[in-house]
């Protein structure tokens, strides 16, 4: 859970906390069963662990959980990593009435959708690099 500034709890009351200026970047990955979904998922997790953003719940947006939709609405950046041209993640956002997102698609990056194959490190790295480019361009 991304607390606002738990690490600064020990500071004096009223003292400004460093997290105030931090941009909220939320990452959503395709949750399908094919390899491209695994690539999207692994890329989102890697981006999260590298500090590029925080992976968030695409299913929660799809389910219409109000707190999650409001979280997405208030985020500075929502990056949807779709697996294939079905654009499910994008459609979930559109259906929820959320327009403040950018989308990348695994199959647009030269990665073929194959039902039985597993994600490779190289594929994940390709998506991570693209996501970083997109996030950097938006700033």
């Amino acid at each position, binding site marked *: 859970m*991304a607390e*606002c500034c*738990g690490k*600064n709890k020990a500071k004096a009351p*009223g003292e400004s*906390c460093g997290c105030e200026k931090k941009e*909220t970047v939320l990452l959503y990955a395709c949750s399908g069963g094919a390899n491209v979904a695994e690539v999207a998922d692994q890329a989102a997790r890697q981006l999260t662990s590298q500090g590029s953003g925080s992976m968030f719940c695409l299913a929660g947006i799809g389910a219409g959980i*109000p707190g999650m939709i409001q979280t997405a609405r*208030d*985020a500075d950046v929502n990056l949807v990593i779709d697996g294939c041209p079905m654009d499910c993640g994008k459609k979930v956002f559109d259906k929820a009435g959320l327009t403040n997102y950018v989308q990348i698609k695994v199959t647009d990056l030269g990665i073929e959708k194959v039902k039985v194959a597993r994600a490779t490190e190289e594929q994940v790295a390709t998506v991570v690099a693209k996501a970083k480019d997109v996030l950097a361009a938006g700033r």
Partner: protein
Amino acid sequence: MKTLQILGTGCPKCKKLAENAEAAAKAMGIEYAIEKISDLKEIMKFGIMITPALVVDGEVKVVGKVPDAEAIKAMLR
């Protein structure tokens, strides 16, 4: 009577959000009750993963931001 819930762990941002929410309610002259929720499990029940957040009468109004009192007034109407 409006119920204002401030979701957060007690950091300066959370306190500022509570101050602004109270200021907005007072400026509007509405009856209100304010509740501060700092337990992460309780916060997550709202579907919220980023704090602070403001909930008005059970409806999540803002997440991860600290709007000023003027902006909060619009959320209380």
